[in-house]
């Protein structure tokens, strides 16, 4: 972290914290449970057993995952909904995110700011986020206060209020959030790159939504989005921490079991057709710094190619962790050596996230002054083409595999992050996917790397985006 980041940290934007309270229903639906207790091997070393896990599906379709972890007196509770920008079409882009904001507003059970207040008084942290495939709400609280989390989430699922006046106030807040993003050149560029990459699929628009939709969406649009996707069968509750699974399950069943199952969720039908040639986009904007983003269509999380592709990304420049606060070193990666050590760019990142439908592998860099984007792109091409043509040395592959596994193990050491990993896996793939992560990464071969490189990391399958600065400078008014 640079000094400027430390200086700036106090201004760090955070997603809005919030949280809740609910009525208990004296009704216990029949449940089916599966308890597992897995061992994990890491780097040839036996690690402590994974904590016992209970997975339950209530009769109304709600999935509940509980892991008991008793080494810290903390409980993290999450509600995951399988809805995000993937489920939006033109006219209602940004609806999932807007609904997320509204689900932090007062309800009958939690009037005024009582939800935030109760979590804050417990010393807890609460928050939510919306992304491509999911909208999630979470809070981590000291042991003993977890009942508050369950009441909050049950209320959120069943009793949220869509007050037109509140929706109007929130409209300007969300537009302000979008404007804050527009101040960042890299976000302006990534918005264009995603739009160029997906001409059919809804991954093509940012989660925040188009400005015209934010200006025109109606309360009815938002309410119908909520009614459609916020049903038990589309949700997963994840609880990890210093708690007793049986007690947690009983309480969740009591609170959530009475909520009606609702209608089946319409499946997102858009399928992105194969790209048949390189696409290029240019964003001209203020400043003096040039940015390059190259995005390749990649495999979805549940595709067997996901794991070798993740290792390929580690070889290129990122250890592929999707945990909070976990970004392992990647200074021995191929792109770091070529671009940063090579004196062309100030940084390099490779992002590849697990998604329900095929997402993007994005290489992002910031060019040094006096270095052309063409020179940076050529260097990236050399590295990527080499991965397609040559066999990766065995030792380099082993290092990348260990990095990928370490990112997941070290990144999920905190209770909050462990709950994040479970919820994300259950939402975009499956718990088996997460449990098999280490094994699948270990099984990747040099031939796998070459195969996925030639399938995904090819020019015809990519979008090249350039941010070209106009050099405009500011001054005092």
């Amino acid at each position, binding site marked *: 972290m640079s*000094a*400027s980041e*430390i*200086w*700036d940290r106090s*201004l760090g934007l955070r997603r*809005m*914290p919030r949280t809740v309270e609910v009525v208990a229903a004296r009704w216990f639906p029949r449940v089916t449970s599966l308890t597992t207790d897995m061992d994990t091997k*890491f*780097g040839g*070393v036996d690690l402590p057993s994974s904590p*016992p896990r209970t997975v339950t599906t209530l009769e109304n379709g709600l999935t509940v995952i509980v892991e*008991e972890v*008793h*080494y*810290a007196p*903390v409980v993290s509770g999450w509600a995951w909904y399988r809805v995000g920008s993937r489920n939006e079409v033109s006219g209602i882009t940004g609806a999932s995110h807007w609904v997320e904001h509204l689900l*932090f507003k007062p309800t009958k059970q939690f009037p005024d*700011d009582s939800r935030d207040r109760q979590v*804050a*008084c417990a010393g*807890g*942290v609460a928050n939510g986020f919306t992304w491509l495939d999911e909208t999630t709400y979470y809070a981590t*609280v*000291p042991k003993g206060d977890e009942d508050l989390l369950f009441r909050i989430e049950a209320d959120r699922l069943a009793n949220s209020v869509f007050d037109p006046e509140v929706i*109007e106030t929130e*409209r*300007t807040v969300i*537009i*302000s959030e979008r404007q*804050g993003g*527009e101040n*960042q*050149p890299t976000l302006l560029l990534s918005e264009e790159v995603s739009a160029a990459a997906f001409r059919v699929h809804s991954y093509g628009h940012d989660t925040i939504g188009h400005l015209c939709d934010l200006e025109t969406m109606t309360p009815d649009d938002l309410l119908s989005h909520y009614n459609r996707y916020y049903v038990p069968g589309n949700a997963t509750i994840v609880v990890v921490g210093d708690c007793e699974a049986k007690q947690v399950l009983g309480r969740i069943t009591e609170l959530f079991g009475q909520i009606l199952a609702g209608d089946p969720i319409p499946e997102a039908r858009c399928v992105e057709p194969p790209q048949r040639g390189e696409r290029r986009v240019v964003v001209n904007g*203020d*400043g*003096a*710094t040039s940015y390059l983003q190259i995005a390749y269509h990649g495999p979805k999380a549940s595709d067997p190619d996901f794991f070798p592709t993740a290792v390929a990304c580690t070889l290129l420049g990122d*250890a592929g962790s999707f945990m909070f606060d976990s970004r392992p*070193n*990647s*200074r*021995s990666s191929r792109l770091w*050596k070529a671009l*940063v050590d090579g004196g062309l760019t*100030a940084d390099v990142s490779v992002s590849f996230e697990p998604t329900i439908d095929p997402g993007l592998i994005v290489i992002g860099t910031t060019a*040094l*002054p006096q270095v052309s984007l063409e020179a940076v792109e050529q260097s990236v091409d050399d590295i990527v083409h080499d991965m397609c043509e040559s066999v990766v040395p065995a030792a380099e592959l082993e*290092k990348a595999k*260990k*990095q990928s*596994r*370490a*990112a997941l*193990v*070290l990144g999920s050491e*905190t209770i909050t992050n462990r709950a994040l990993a479970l919820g994300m896996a259950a939402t975009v793939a499956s718990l088996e996917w997460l449990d098999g992560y280490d094994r699948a990464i270990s099984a990747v071969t040099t031939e796998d790397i070459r195969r996925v490189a030639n399938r995904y990391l090819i020019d015809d399958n990519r979008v090249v985006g350039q941010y070209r600065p106009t050099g405009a*400078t500011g*001054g005092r*008014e």
Partner: protein
Amino acid sequence: MTLPDRSAVLSAESIDRRVLEEGVVLLMRRHPHSRSVVVGISVASGAADDPDDRLGLAECTAEMLMRGSEKMSADVLNEEVESVGASLGAASGLHTTGLTATCLAEDFSHLLDLIEQTLTEPKFPDSELEKVKSEMLTGLFERDHDTRQTAVMQVHRLAYPTDHPYSRPPDGFFDTVEAITRDDLVAHHSEHLCRRPVIVTVVGAIEPDEVEAQVRTTLGSWVAARLSAQNTPDAPPLSEVATERLVIPGKTQSDLIIGVPGPRRGDDDYLAARIGNLALGGFGLMGRLGKVVREEHGLAYYASSALNGGAGPGLWMVYAGVDPNSVDQVVGLCRSEMQRLASEPLSGEEMDDCASNFTGSLPMQLESNGGVAQTLGDMEWYGLGLDYVERYPSLIRSITADQVMETAMRYLGQPNYALAIAGPNA
């Protein structure tokens, strides 16, 4: 699987503190259920010590620690770290420079060897220095076109006297970064990093006696008696309302910051200021500021406050990101809340809420090895005592609403303040 609840409180008894030499302290905490170890080495020297004509030197030196030693090139170092899935990074702040490493327990000794390489015998090759300077200059170009970073820089310039280290950006200016030479790095390393007080924190799956022996053996002569840390000067109250509005073309949102020099971490009124700051911009959804600016008026995605007191009188500031046409209205709302905090005592309920938040959040702060390491470092740097976490709830509960109001009056309630706004033309 029920394990003993060992992390409930960071008690003095659970902390192992050893003074290796004058000014060299080793702090350890064992976490037997963790799979990893976090190592932090923090030296009492940072950007505040940079000469005016070499601003950015501390940051540059920290990064150059990672760019090769006498025995090991940067390439080899990176391979050694990453081949075991570990992370190792160097960074500087205003008053400290340090290394942080995270690794699996089995690789701790290996990481300590690599830390020794980076800390004690850096090579500072000219070729790497040129690259690091280019990277820093790129950061400065970005900073100058970033509304938030620009506002942060300007509000510090306005709030502190020109000869105060906090008036200067720690990442420097174009000419001061350009001017840095290898000789500057060598001098900074020998005169600051090797001579100022140092704290080594090791948290996780460790055995303290073994760790001490390894630290003594590995870091060897670097663990030698040290001089005391340099003091940071006081900052006088502002003598006028100092305002700066900067236009950055092409932007859609303005960032505004209102600030004044606040208390130091060790000052008697620091905890009262923390409670006031929590009520103002932190409690629940960004405190009173979030409620008024965001929830009631819908004028901003964020509006909050921060108290930055540390070794010196860091800025106590209120900040928001707003539509350019709403800047003056939001400044008015923020000033009104600052004045309210300084003129009306918090209610008994608000005081209780804030105290509950501070004490209730301790288990979360101490959940991870990194969080414990950070807390141990703060306790040592600011002389809070090893039993600070145990005393913390009663310390917080002992603060009265009048103390909070009087403290707010001393800082936020004064008629003069610094205001920086950066964004497009309204």
